């Protein structure tokens, strides 16, 4: 069998492709050609690596968290890959800087982005400021409320934030609006998509930009601890931080892969965002993948306390890994995630994003399935500052 790592689209098994209006094909072809040329160009690779070293703050460190791990049902060692320490506070910057460099290469002057939690929007606004690009961020109206601090950050950075009032007024609708903008302004605008979903080449390209996470982590585990982890854990919204961690390990068959989706009110309710657990293959936002939908193929609204996981679709590579059985995807409820968020804060002094907290809760749950003394590496995809309002309300901290 060929290596799983080599899969590079447009299809991952039966998933992926380009289900978009003809109006976008030329832009996607241009992006693909520009990306392929950049990938093979040492100057580009050097430029991006230098940006990561001098601006993002890469490599991100690995922190072992024994006090947190002691709360698992069985004995495990837990390690965090600290993407929360990146400039702007999450993994999103890895992809944004890569695509911003490509925007320059294509001679485009304007970027648009969708955002759920606001982290991708903040990272995009940051790159726009750094490179002198015009930036418009589409954000569901519901999310502008629950992530108000990030809206202020984007505005301070000089971006225009457009609240999206159509549909469920969350991430899915923000993507629709960004696609409409792109169709109309494709000659000067790059759509800086923030996760591993969308039409080819986005799932492959965004994965490649995030694969720095797993490449670093794999080398760090070997160098600092002398072994590879037995399991990886990451939260899955669209799937970018998860695939970024997983990719380097796809062909390490002794390393188990666990993705954690938002189960919202619970896996026994219909208020969740557990696309890979409860969805069916279909076409949404330009790719064939698992998605939450009714029997007529209408997208069903997702629910999660976490804006960044509140999405009824998922990247095609994850659908493929699920069907292959290479990765397992499980659900974590709002309550479980919030417990884990507080636990990591109190045991280790690290406040994670609510998205990330799903992976933390998941790691504690899978511990009992692993061999005694097993090690779990978690992608700590983001920091929790943006979630303080939600957390304060949830835990009643401001009374």
């Amino acid at each position, binding site marked *: 069998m060929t290596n799983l790592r080599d899969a590079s689209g447009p299809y991952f098994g039966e998933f992926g492709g380009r289900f978009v209006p003809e109006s976008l094909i*030329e832009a996607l072809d241009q992006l693909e050609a520009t990306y392929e040329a950049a990938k093979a160009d040492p100057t580009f690779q050097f430029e991006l690596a230098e940006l990561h070293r001098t601006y993002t703050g890469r490599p991100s460190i690995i922190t072992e968290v024994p006090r947190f791990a002691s709360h698992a049902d069985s004995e495990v060692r837990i390690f965090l890959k600290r993407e929360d320490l990146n400039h702007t506070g999450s993994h999103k910057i890895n992809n944004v800087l890569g695509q911003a460099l490509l925007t320059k290469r294509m001679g485009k002057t304007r970027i648009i982005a969708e955002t759920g939690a606001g982290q991708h929007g903040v990272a995009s606004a940051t790159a726009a400021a750094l490179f002198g690009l015009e930036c418009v961020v589409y954000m569901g109206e519901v999310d502008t409320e629950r992530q108000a601090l990030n809206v202020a950050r984007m505005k301070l950075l000089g971006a225009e934030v457009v609240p999206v009032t159509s549909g469920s007024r969350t991430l*899915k609708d923000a993507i629709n609006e960004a*696609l409409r903008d792109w*169709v109309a302004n494709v000659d000067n605008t790059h759509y800086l998509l923030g996760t591993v979903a969308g039409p080819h080449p986005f799932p492959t390209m965004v994965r490649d930009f995030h694969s720095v996470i797993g490449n670093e982590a794999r080398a760090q585990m070997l160098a600092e601890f002398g072994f590879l982890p037995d399991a990886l854990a990451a939260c899955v919204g669209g799937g970018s931080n998860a695939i970024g961690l997983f990719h380097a390990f796809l062909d390490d068959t002794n390393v188990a892969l666990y993705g954690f989706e938002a189960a919202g009110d619970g896996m026994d309710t219909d208020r969740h965002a557990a696309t890979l657990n409860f969805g069916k293959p*279909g076409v949404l936002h330009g790719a064939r993948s698992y998605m939450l939908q009714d*029997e007529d193929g209408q997208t069903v609204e997702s629910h999660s306390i976490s804006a960044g996981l509140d999405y009824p679709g998922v990247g095609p590579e994850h659908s493929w890994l699920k069907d292959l059985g290479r990765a397992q995807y499980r659900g974590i409820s709002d309550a479980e995630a919030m417990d884990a968020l507080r636990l990591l804060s109190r045991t280790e002094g690290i406040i994670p994003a609510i998205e990330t907290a799903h992976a933390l809760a998941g790691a504690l749950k899978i511990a009992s399935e692993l061999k005694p003394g097993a090690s779990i590496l978690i992608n700590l995809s983001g920091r929790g500052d943006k979630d303080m309002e939600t957390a304060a309300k949830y835990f009643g901290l401001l009374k």
Partner: protein
Amino acid sequence: MTSKVAAIFEANRASGRKTLIGYFPLGYPTLQESIDAAIAMCENGVDILELGVPYSDPVMDGPVIQAATVDALAAGFKLRQTFDAVRAVTEAVSAPVLVMTYWNPVLQYGVEKFASDLKAAGGAGLITPDLIPDEAGDWLEASDAYHLDRVFLATPTSTPERVKRASDLSRGFVYAVSTMGITGARSEIDANARKVVAEVRSTHTGQNTAVGIGISTGEQVLEVNEYADGAIVGSAFVRAYQSGGLEELVETAKSLNPNH
């Protein structure tokens, strides 16, 4: 077996006329009212009808059609009612009925079953705004098997190779996108549309081209008809219906195709 849609274009051409294609969303404001509206359009100037399937994520549609299809879904529109509506309209009028649908509803219904049921209902074929020929393998097969028309889009940014492919694979006509945008009335039709139509003509001489996206006035239809075989009008019909019901819809149809 020749395409009923292509036959309309040919008949109109023979009598020196252009073809008007009119869009109306299914299930808006209710299924029956959308059927009545569609029939009225066909009786008053629309040569070919385009019935839109309401969809949760209509990325090619502007605010007017988006809002109408959101209402249709909220009012309980179900995909299988598409076939009821197509049957009702084709029984009442002779205009061919194309269904305009995003791809996922067809995919979930089953491509072959959709084709078979559409044929049985008397439908002429599909316009597929988010299905490019590259991804259309199943649909090419099913539309051949059931002798259905298939309309692909050609845009100002499509390469000559892609325009040729869309022209070769389309049956009925090619949908020439007038402007780089989404549906919705625009004040000026891009000179780009002329380019797309010319490109279709040069790559595929027998093919019909109709220009759509952003055409809302009689003058715009006339302008498009100077160089294309027909014009496609959507949002303007929906807006007319919203402001003055069937009466204004009928007036709009008449004004857009005065020679009918």
